[in-house]
């Protein structure tokens, strides 16, 4: 075995361990969601779908799921729209204080979530907007718009700046150019941003917990169940949330990767 081969094996083991470290808890959670025993112990009990049946029968869980759906869909649309606008303003215009402008836009994800959540709660209560579904939507939009902006900005940077001028030159007004050139060009990135922001919003806990009031989302209800007692229902909901989030992230990646491939081809 030559040195580079043994190095490869070591690196391979290392990568496998990283993946195991990240995914083991999730895999265990999935396994225990089908386990008949009340406490997560080994050896496992029998296979059961009891916990899934239980959460399906729980109206609180249904309500939370619906809230989560409304919040993540609305957030995705709003955040992607905001992200697109800021990305385009960066692409199109040069102005004083553009650096600080961009830094300000990209700031929210760098603020510790707990601080962000507290600030949101304080502010929303002050203006009488706390505890509503839309409070969560607003908070999540602020939080996820920078992700949408980053994705769309990458795409715009790949655009030949002459494309926009060419559209004007051929008689397209600013709005027509936006509709028939800029948006079609950014379409893969826009879809990618929609799925990504939906995923982030769907499993975001801290901010939701602070501002949601009685309108709980799925991550919030998971905490409530765990707080009460040890209940394998949590594993079932967790599995469900994980699958939804992963699906959204994978979809975002698919759109992201397909356009990368396309741009390599051209």
């Amino acid at each position: 075995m030559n040195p580079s081969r043994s190095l490869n094996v070591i690196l391979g083991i290392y990568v496998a361990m990283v993946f195991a470290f990240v995914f083991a808890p999730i895999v265990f959670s999935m396994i225990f969601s089908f386990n008949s025993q009340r406490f997560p112990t080994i050896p496992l009990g029998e296979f059961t779908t009891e916990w899934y049946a239980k959460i399906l029968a729980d109206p609180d869980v249904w309500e939370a799921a619906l809230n989560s759906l409304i919040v993540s869909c609305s957030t995705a649309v709003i955040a992607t729209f905001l992200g697109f606008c800021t990305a385009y303003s960066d692409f199109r215009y040069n102005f004083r204080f553009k650096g600080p402008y961009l830094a300000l836009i990209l700031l929210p994800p760098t603020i510790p979530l707990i601080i962000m959540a507290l600030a949101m709660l304080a502010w929303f209560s002050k203006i009488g907007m706390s505890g509503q579904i839309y409070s969560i939507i607003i908070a999540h939009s602020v939080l996820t718009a920078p992700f949408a902006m980053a994705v769309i900005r990458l795409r715009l940077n790949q655009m030949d700046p002459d494309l926009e001028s060419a559209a004007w030159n051929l008689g397209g007004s600013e709005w027509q150019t936006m509709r028939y050139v800029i948006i079609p060009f950014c379409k893969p990135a826009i879809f990618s941003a929609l799925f990504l922001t939906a995923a982030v919003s769907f499993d975001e806990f801290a901010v939701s917990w602070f501002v949601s009031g009685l309108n709980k989302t799925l991550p919030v209800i998971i905490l409530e169940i765990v707080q009460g007692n040890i209940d394998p229902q949590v594993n079932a909901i967790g599995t469900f949330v994980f699958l939804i989030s992963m699906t959204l992230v994978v979809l975002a990646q698919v759109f992201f990767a397909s356009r990368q491939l396309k741009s390599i081809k051209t």
Partner: protein
Amino acid sequence: MSKPLVVFDKVQKHFGNFVAVKELDFEIREGEFLAIMGPSGCGKTTTLRMLAGLEAPSVGEIRLNDHVMNDVAPHERDTPLVWQSLALFPFLTARENVEFGLKMRGVDKAERRKRALKWLDKMDILEFADRDISTLSGGQKQRVALARSLVMEPQILLLDEPLSALDAHLVIRMQAVLTDLQRELGITFVYVTHSQSEAFAMADRVIIMGKGEIAQIGSPKDIYREPANQFVAEFVGRNNILSGKVASLSDDTARIATPSGDFTVPTKEVHLVKGQKASFVISADLLHISIDEPDARNKAHCKLISEEFVGSMVTLFLENSTGHEFKVQMQERELSKFDLKSGAEIWLSWDTASAHVLNEN
């Protein structure tokens, strides 16, 4: 002479403190093929972009058909541009690209399609109509870009170094396509390029720009044989430039003393004073070479430094005893009679009428 279609009236363009265009005062005639040529950064593309409305003049007026165009938005003008980058829409097919301008103008679908296909056919790329742009070759993309502009049936077509990305053999083909099109359609072409061969091969008139100003306007032949000043003479390339002082004057010639010797130049078109500095050019193809000292008024003894072949033409690079470089252009079969080796000593001579005195500026 046809009437002016476009007038640049004392146009200047500043970007902050940077002056891209110092002062432009010229006309574009209806139906002509005008080339604007100059080194990069001379303001030629800025000039074209002002005509398309993508930049606004800082000072002065641009008039199209006697209308002042300064404040007309680009999309309200009928000045399609063929881009150096082509700027084809990558998410549309060839046909959809050609239809784009018509769609913006609100032409209905059937009519749009008919006209787009007609132009794709005219450009010999009808078979690629429904192909994605990314699957087309450079030459085919070029034709789509031309069709996309020409489908608008404009009075004037702007071209910004459209052939710079093509292979040499395609450039020659596209030059023929462009000149044929221009003649057939009878519309005005304004062609910006840094390539002398493209400009001279196609244009009726050429504007040479340098540092934001017009250095010379004229036919390709005028510019080649009678460059207005040293900048043009140097930019045009295959010229020999000699500088010195006027030693003596007669009726229509002058004797100019240069470090390389005394030479006689015609003075019909210039006014020279004894003792003043003067420069003159002789085109590289107007020099004669000989092994023995010729019996001529203008001659120089040189050493052959190198040769450069371009097809049947060959350019000799020579140097005289003072280190001045001479360029001679001739047919390869002419040269082969001499059987020259590098370092060979030969004589150059030229007719007095071949020299052209430059205006000092």
